[in-house]
């Protein structure tokens, strides 16, 4: 598809053997990259080239992780973070999809909310955290709201976009068959919006995770962010990086899962295939 591989084929004819190195090259190099960095980190830390205090080392992080998961407190933190994420993201999905559809469908409503949407979308929503803490306190509520705000705009904006870019031909066909406005909406516009919404869902997950982390780092009494802060304050870098690792894994899993969903609905996406 892209230029590079074609150039390679032109410039160098690879022998076609039984075992083709190129097929596995990506995996091999990837593994080498991962293991290489981990090895340098580990050795550097053991020999004192990398500060053990600041950066810990891979084995120490694993050990700290094994110790952590046996502590009941860890699971309390984990549950708090998971709840904040699930509730905040869930409410965001439940609200953002209907709101996005409505705003996309009713032109005047869109005119009325557009300035607000643009402003709140350009604003780093985490900036609202101090006022949310004043309003909702240090508990789960303020975190749920910040997670909600993070995800909501990421979902609502593509959804509006989706309604606005419904393929003109579909609308014409539906009208030719005398579809009512209601039918037009439920059987043409809403399904055509799905691919856009799923993209929004994926962006929203990342935003929601940031909300959890920042909310807990800023002001909370329980949660993985608190665990990271606590470990940092006591110079337990290994525990701290274990906490970060959990967020990384959560991010990778959630984004990959939603990418799968997205790819499934991608087939519905109108304009792109037509162009």
């Amino acid at each position, binding site marked *: *598809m*892209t*230029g*590079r591989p*074609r*150039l390679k084929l032109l410039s160098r004819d690879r022998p076609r053997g039984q075992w083709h190195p190129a097929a596995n*090259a990506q995996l091999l*190099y*990837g593994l080498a*990259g*991962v293991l*290489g*960095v981990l090895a340098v980190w580990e050795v550097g830390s053991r020999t004192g080239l990398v500060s053990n205090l*600041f950066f810990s080392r891979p084995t120490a992080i694993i050990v700290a992780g094994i110790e952590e998961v046996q502590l009941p407190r860890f699971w309390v933190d984990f549950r708090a973070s998971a709840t904040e994420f699930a509730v905040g993201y869930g409410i965001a999905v439940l609200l953002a999809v209907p709101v996005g559809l409505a705003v996309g*469908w*009713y*032109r005047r409503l869109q*005119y*009325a*909310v557009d*300035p*607000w949407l643009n*402003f709140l979308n*350009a*604003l*780093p929503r*985490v*900036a609202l*955290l*101090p*006022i949310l803490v*004043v309003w909702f306190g240090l508990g789960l509520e303020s975190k749920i709201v910040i997670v909600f705000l993070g995800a909501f705009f990421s979902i609502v904006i593509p959804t509006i976009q989706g309604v*606005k*870019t*419904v393929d*003109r031909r579909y*609308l014409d066909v539906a009208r030719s068959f005398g579809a009512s406005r209601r039918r037009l909406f439920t059987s043409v*516009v809403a399904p055509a919006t799905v691919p856009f919404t799923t993209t929004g869902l994926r962006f929203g997950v990342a935003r929601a*995770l*940031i909300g959890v*982390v*920042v909310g807990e*780092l*800023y002001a909370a009494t329980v949660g993985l*962010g608190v665990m*990271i802060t606590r*470990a*940092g*304050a006591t*110079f337990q*870098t290994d525990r*701290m*990086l274990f906490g*970060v690792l959990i*967020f*990384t894994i959560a*991010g*990778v899993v959630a984004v990959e899962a939603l990418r799968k969903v997205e790819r499934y609905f991608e087939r519905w996406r109108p304009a792109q*295939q037509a*162009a």
Partner: protein
Amino acid sequence: MAGSVCRRAERTDRVTTQTTALPRSRHPGSTRSPWMPSERIVFGILGFIVVLGAWEAISRLGLVKKVLLSSPSLILEAGANDIASGVIWPHLTATGVEFALGFGVALATGIPLGLAIGWFRRLRYVVDPWLAAVYATPTVALIPLVILVAGIGLTSKVIVVWLETVVVVAVSTAAGVRATEARYYDIARSFRASKRTTFLTVVLPASIPFILTGVRLGVGRALVGVIVSEFIASNVGIGFYISYNGTVFQSARVFFGIILLGLIGITLGELVRRIERRFDVWRPALA
């Protein structure tokens, strides 16, 4: 026969040219109406007035404590005060410097890194897993570590902004290099361009739209980084201004800070979008 074909041609023509968005079609005369352009503005202003009016009313009627909710008039007053007394400027400058330095370093490192990753296939294989991991990590989780290593001063903010931005920029740049059209390579080869010339005159310019996309995404992330690190540990900056006024229940000032940030976000976003539009002609038509 000829008549019907002609009519069909007319019909299709009408359908294809009328590719306006859905809602407009409900008001067939709307495109010609002199009211149309202003309707957007009218409803936009209406939206503003309704929200701000309700806010002001709720606050004045005392339905919610004024200390908590503040109100548009109080925010205006607080903002005017802090601008007049000059309190806000050191915060704005500090945030600006942190942002500019971190973002500058991120561009200076992210673009070459992305170009290298896009150009050298094996390098891409090696760093891909790491980039994917960092990309999926909420980088803000590393802020406590950065503060541990670099303290609470300017350095830690610059590092956070850099961390937030560099990966997006590098990933977009690499995508740009890889999306360079095959025929450009073929043409360059036909003219016996060296690898170096191909890179400098074909790949680099072709990547610019993608680099700019990375920059646009980076701006948003960098703002988050700067604000959060100021929330967590600092004594100056817009993030500190917001956070400090939150702890002393100066809600009006908190909102003023938030509004400033929103304006900064809008301005930066618009700026990048303008630059992007200039280079849009270079963007290959992706299927």
